[in-house]
């Protein structure tokens, strides 16, 4: 007990020694801290690229005073000789929440009860998830225990923040100076502003419910902040004030994944902000796009544990994509480095901080240069945080934050001895420890034993033999004292001999006290034998022969059926096909189609191939590629349901180019789709129109110069009839009309103000609606019942515009005449009905009646399965109502292209149009037809024969990776159960929730 008190007192004294000059001192007298500490004879790695041999480092008052080979040493110096040892700058983690508690959620689904639509704070922004005013420091409590963990790994400085909300406020830069006061430790109290796509746990405010809502919210925030800064807002908004104040700090965006990084970067581009992106560890799979962000990255080392594939049934659930990621993820840092992308490491997403070293070693094994690894822990994070003058390298003026190591960092034999932070020593492994390892002749009371000491010098193990008998031995070695306990030869007796001795450097003879089993006290000596190193050396030689890890190839996308190389545009001549032109030529038999430079070049008999590849299409059919007016594949979000209008969101922000449904749709002859927002609200979000260029990145999927669309919705979904939510207007069809009237009235006023050249607050939502009023944006409206269909047409007419498309439009047949008069098209299901009350009168003759009345009619999917056979759905119009085959095919090709205003490019086989065509094995409207080749702009994106080859290569690669996984398991590596990652399949009614 007494000892403890003494220890405490000591700690206090030390603490007070470090107090600020002007702090009162009540526990003693002031002492000067002006002595120097000098480290001599070390290899000083001032930066990853520069080293000083036999260097001298001088520090004082927590800072580096001098570094070099010929520096003069002041007289009042404490000198440390580091002969043979190395000095490195200590590590910096630019992305942690060290000492800051993440708030716990309130639990429960945000949809349960009456969802919260409004914000819950006063004096702040209208959305609770925007919290730039958060100051990490006010939530910060220095966590000595946690600091210890970081210090042991070599960290000197951590960047911390409050990980809560979409805008998370400012972070602080903390030195791991457990001896110092808060004042000493805080290097910067406003070091950066943090962002994420995660909502705040402190509020249940519903908006945004989706990723695209989060993106739209951020965009609007930037507009609002500018507007506020210009002094146009009368009310106080502490959020916007803080946001404006934080603008010039480094902006760190926790993207969590490669693709969200791209999404964040795009927001930044719009507002002249270059975010520093916290990556997902999957950057390697689209490295060119990562490079194109021009962002600096903070990269986690979250390499997945090997999957346990020993149970083949479970292994079956594992996708090739996940298996590959296990194999490839350790190469992520190396790939980033080879592409000259500036990146820092972070311990973020590591289960244990102590995993850092092994992960970095693994990354090195997978091709990462050691110097780059060191830079990613030192100079780069310092630079990212704008603190290169103080941190990250060993130079005059920097903080005395450095490591003393046995050898080179990340080399096999290296040991970190000491980690100095702000001039304070943290001993991790005693560097002065005397190495006792070796063989000794141990003599006790005339008996001679063989003693061998092996293992780490700081934690040696002993083995004692008498002749051939091995005796049970235990050894401890602390503070230059060793004690050894060993058993008798006769192990049935509990008799021990105890030895104790102090250790003096440079002496090969240990001498000490021996307590014999009978209690008698004697002496012992242990004399070191000559070193025999032979065996060890051999061991080393074999160890060096380690195999280089095999890294499987990345494909685009990096999953099964991904492509090693994107398909190239080819010139092709299809000979002797039945060609469904969708033009006045109708259906042409025994006809050739020539495609050249991505366009349809000629249609006719006996065309000259020229250099084009000739494909025999005898008995086969060629049609324009299928266009799906209503799709929800290839998107990371579908519904922004947090408000009754979400015109500010766009699906273009959330394209998922890695969705296998894209490939499967191609296998069904689909070449273009419109990804519509869902139907959770009367005014939904903007659409994305894509060409299904499998393998491309999100941006390249977008239909070039596509017309602008927005989704509207009517009926049960928008009035939330089928789930428990009673607090959002509208709850009836009556309310839906008034909602539109209100929004369009406001949009009109907005438009007027904008055109008046007076200052106006940029409102993305109203701007979008104003585009509708001015005819620049088209509406595709989810609709079922005739009353509301009629209503929306009347609303549009009042505001002098036209609805472009009614999608679903299951009662279109009841108001087809009115639709024609209004000039709206219909995109419907072939035969869906009975799933809810408002589709009770849906009939499969709907398309036929609308078509016969002159409505421009299409058939859509709204479903990732049905979209694979839209040709069949079109053919149902022949059965239900007797539409001609030629017209029926147009329902899924030319007509939807017209509805989307892309028929100048696609939708028919016409010279000059894009070569987006399908070669079918059979009559394209028959149940027996299969797409044999699906071609977009002259490049073959699906090919039956290539598909077969890919199946085989997928099987082979799965097998190979399974073997590698098994090997990893057998080598004792930690594993995780095989599992299937689930992607949500979206339909109109899907309500997703972002965290």
């Amino acid at each position: 007990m007494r000892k403890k008190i003494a220890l405490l007192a000591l700690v206090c004294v030390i603490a007070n020694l470090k107090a600020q000059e002007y702090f009162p001192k009540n526990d003693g007298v002031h002492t000067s801290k002006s002595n120097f500490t000098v480290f001599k004879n070390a290899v000083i790695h001032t930066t990853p690229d520069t080293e000083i041999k036999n260097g001298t480092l001088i520090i004082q008052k927590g800072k580096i005073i001098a570094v070099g080979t010929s520096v003069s040493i002041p007289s009042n110096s404490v000198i440390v000789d580091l002969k043979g040892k190395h000095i490195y700058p200590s590590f910096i983690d630019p992305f942690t929440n060290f000492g800051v508690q993440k708030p716990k959620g309130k639990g429960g689904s945000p949809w349960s009860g009456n969802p919260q639509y409004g914000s819950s704070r006063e004096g702040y922004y209208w959305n609770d998830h925007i919290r730039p005013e958060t100051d990490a420091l006010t939530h910060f409590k220095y966590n000595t225990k946690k600091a210890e963990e970081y210090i042991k790994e070599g960290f000197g400085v951590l960047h911390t923040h409050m990980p809560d909300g979409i805008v998370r406020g400012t972070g602080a830069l903390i030195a791991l100076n457990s001896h110092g006061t808060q004042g000493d430790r805080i290097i910067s109290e406003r070091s950066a502003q943090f962002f994420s796509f995660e909502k705040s746990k402190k509020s249940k405010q519903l908006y945004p419910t989706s990723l695209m809502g989060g993106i739209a919210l951020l965009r609007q925030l930037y507009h609002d902040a500018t507007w506020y800064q210009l002094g146009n807002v009368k009310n106080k908004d502490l959020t916007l004030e803080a946001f404006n104040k934080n603008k010039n700090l480094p902006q760190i965006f926790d993207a969590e994944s490669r693709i969200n990084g791209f999404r964040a970067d795009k927001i930044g581009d719009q507002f002249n902000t270059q975010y520093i992106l916290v990556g997902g560890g999957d950057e390697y799979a689209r490295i060119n796009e990562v490079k194109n962000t021009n962002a600096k990255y903070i990269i986690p080392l979250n390499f997945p544990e090997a999957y346990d594939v020993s149970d083949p049934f479970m292994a079956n659930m594992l996708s090739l994509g996940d298996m590959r990621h296990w194999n490839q993820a350790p190469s992520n840092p190396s790939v980033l480095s080879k592409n000259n992308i500036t990146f820092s490491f972070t311990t973020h997403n590591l289960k244990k901080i102590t995993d850092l070293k092994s992960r970095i070693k693994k990354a090195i094994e997978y091709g990462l240069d050691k110097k780059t690894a060191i830079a990613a822990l030192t100079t780069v994070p310092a630079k990212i945080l704008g603190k290169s003058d103080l941190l990250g390298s060993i130079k005059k003026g920097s903080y005395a934050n450095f490591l003393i190591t046995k050898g080179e960092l990340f080399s096999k034999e290296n040991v970190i001895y000491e980690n100095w932070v702000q001039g304070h020593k943290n001993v991790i492994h005693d560097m002065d420890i005397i190495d006792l390892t070796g063989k000794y002749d141990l003599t006790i009371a005339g008996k001679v034993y063989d003693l061998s000491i092996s293992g780490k010098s700081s934690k040696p193990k002993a083995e004692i033999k008498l002749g051939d008998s091995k005796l049970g031995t235990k050894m401890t070695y602390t503070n230059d004292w060793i004690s050894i306990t060993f058993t008798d030869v006769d192990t049935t007796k509990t008799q021990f001999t105890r030895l104790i001795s102090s250790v003096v450097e440079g002496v090969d003879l240990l001498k000490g006290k021996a307590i014999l089993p009978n209690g008698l006290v004697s002496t012992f000596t242990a004399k070191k034998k000559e070193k025999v190193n032979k065996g060890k050396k051999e061991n080393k030689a074999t160890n060096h022969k380690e195999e280089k890890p095999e890294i499987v190839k990345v494909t685009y996308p990096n999953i099964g059926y991904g492509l090693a190389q994107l398909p190239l545009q080819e010139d092709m001549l299809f000979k002797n096909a039945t060609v469904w032109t969708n033009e006045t030529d109708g259906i042409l038999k025994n006809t050739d189609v020539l495609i050249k430079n991505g366009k349809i070049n000629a249609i006719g008999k006996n065309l000259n191939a020229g250099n084009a590849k000739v494909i025999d299409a005898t008995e086969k059919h060629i049609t324009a590629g299928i266009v799906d007016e209503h799709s929800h594949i290839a998107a990371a979000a579908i519904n922004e349901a947090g408000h009754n209008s979400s015109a500010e969101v766009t699906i273009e922000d959330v394209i998922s180019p890695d969705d296998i449904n894209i490939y499967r749709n191609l296998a069904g002859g689909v070449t273009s789709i419109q990804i519509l927002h869902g139907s959770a609200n009367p005014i939904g979000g903007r659409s994305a129109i894509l060409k299904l260029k499998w393998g491309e990145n999100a941006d390249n999927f977008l239909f070039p110069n596509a017309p602008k669309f927005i989704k509207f919705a009517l009926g049960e979904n928008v009035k939330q009839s089928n789930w428990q939510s009673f607090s959002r207007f509208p709850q009836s069809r009556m309310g839906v009309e008034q909602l539109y009237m209100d929004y369009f009235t406001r949009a009109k006023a907005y438009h007027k103000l904008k055109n008046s050249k007076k200052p106006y607050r940029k409102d993305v939502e109203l701007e979008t609606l104003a585009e509708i009023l001015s005819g620049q944006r088209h509406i595709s409206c989810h609709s079922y019942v005739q009353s509301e269909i009629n209503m929306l047409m009347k609303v549009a007419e009042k505001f002098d515009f036209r609805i472009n498309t009614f999608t679903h439009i299951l009662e279109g047949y009841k108001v087809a005449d009115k639709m024609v008069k209004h000039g709206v098209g219909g995109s419907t299901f072939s035969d869906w009905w009975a799933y809810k009350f408002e589709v009770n009168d849906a009939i499969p003759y709907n398309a036929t009646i609308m078509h016969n009345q002159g409505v421009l009619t299409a058939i859509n999917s709204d479903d990732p399965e049905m979209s694979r056979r839209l040709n069949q759905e079109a053919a149902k119009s022949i059965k239900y109502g007797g539409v001609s085959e030629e017209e029926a095919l147009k329902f899924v090709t030319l007509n939807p292209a017209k509805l989307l205003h892309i028929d100048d490019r696609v939708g028919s086989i016409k010279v000059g149009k894009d070569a987006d065509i399908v070669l079918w094995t059979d009559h394209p409207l028959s149940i027996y037809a299969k797409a044999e080749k699906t071609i977009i702009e002259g490049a073959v994106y699906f090919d039956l024969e290539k598909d077969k080859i890919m199946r085989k290569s997928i099987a082979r690669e799965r097998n190979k990776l399974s073997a590698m996984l098994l090997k990893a398991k057998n080598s004792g590596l930690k594993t995780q159960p095989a599992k299937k990652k689930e992607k949500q399949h979206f339909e109109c009614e899907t309500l997703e929730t972002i965290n």
Partner: protein
Amino acid sequence: MKEIMYIILLMVFSVGKITAQQTPAKSQSETITIVGAIAHIGNGEVIENSSIVFEQGKIIAIGDRSAISVKGKVIDASGKHVYPGFIAPNSTLGLVEIGAVRATDDDSEIGTFNPHIRSIIAYNAESKIVESMRPNGVLIAQVTPRGGRISGTSSIVQLDAWNWEDAVLKMDDGIHINWPSIYKRGRWWLGEDAGYKPNKEYAKQVTELEDFINQSYATIQLNNPELEGDLPYLAMKGLFNGTKTLFVHVNSEKGIVDVINFSKKHSFRKVVLVGAYEGYKVADQLKKNNISVLITRTHSNPKLEDEDYDLPYKNAKLLMDKGVLVAIQNSGQMERANARNLPFQAGTVAAHGLDKEKALQLITGNSAKILGIDNFTGTLEIGKDATLFISIGDALDMRTNQLEKAFIQGREISLESHQTKLWKRYRDKYKTK
């Protein structure tokens, strides 16, 4: 309160009035001969130029036109096609009218072991969905309860009846077990990974099922087990004496192997797998153990990212090629309304490699065998029910699936429906304009 009830009742009745089903046809009074049609027998055979004679609801003659003399009323179907009525196994037709309206949903009961729950008494013969099956040739359905480990007892009905009692073709034909899943979905709303992971409860759930079966078996060994009143146990009786078929809803390979062993252990006479998505991997074992399959709907997406895009399209073929008895069922999203697309699901299997007549078996002859009704229906053979239809063309192709006439047990049924009525009504609306 009374007033409200009255209004509700009035509403129900008035709605009922508008939506009443087509009047069921009267029994066959006159012998009918269909001549000249291409007759698809439903067992893989075709008669190119046929004659089919049926009387009092039964087929009395079928063969080459030249070999059979006409009798009674003659229908000339030259160049057209005749098929046995299509069969929709494992359906919830008549149990749910509007999916999203809970008041109309009668397809599942609470509880785990519900073999005593009988679908037939909830079967709504006047469902608007049921009548919409017929214009596509779907004339017979197995009405199956959902939910629980044992969902209950199904029955087989024909789709033109005044009430469930009239509709029944085979009462209480089978009991449906939902085999425990070897995978479990992460509960994302509790912060778990949304993907699939091993179901740790699997063994326990199988044991519970075994216990229930052992208890059932013990109970029925009593002299007068009915006196004990253990309804769930008693309901299992038919499985042990072979009067009921055991339908096990299972998809994974491991689950299927376990079901095979389970069936052997309990000596169930007739076992059918429903779903059996991965059954193709153990087709030989299914064949060897005489276990037939109602396969996962053809029109579905592959369940795993790396699977062949056409796996669901060809799945039935993979099993059939190995000699397993297979038919198509259509459970899943929007299963009732889409049950009328059964012929096109069979057609899709043909598109992906199966012979067309074999594909037809997937919704006729094979279905009847699997459901245990092949002794009186499912194919165009002498002595069997005259449940058949005439289509202008190939009924597995939506372009040509156009029914002219349909008969259930010889009765010529209406091919109208709520939907055709609306079609005509609005077609006429625009005509008169």
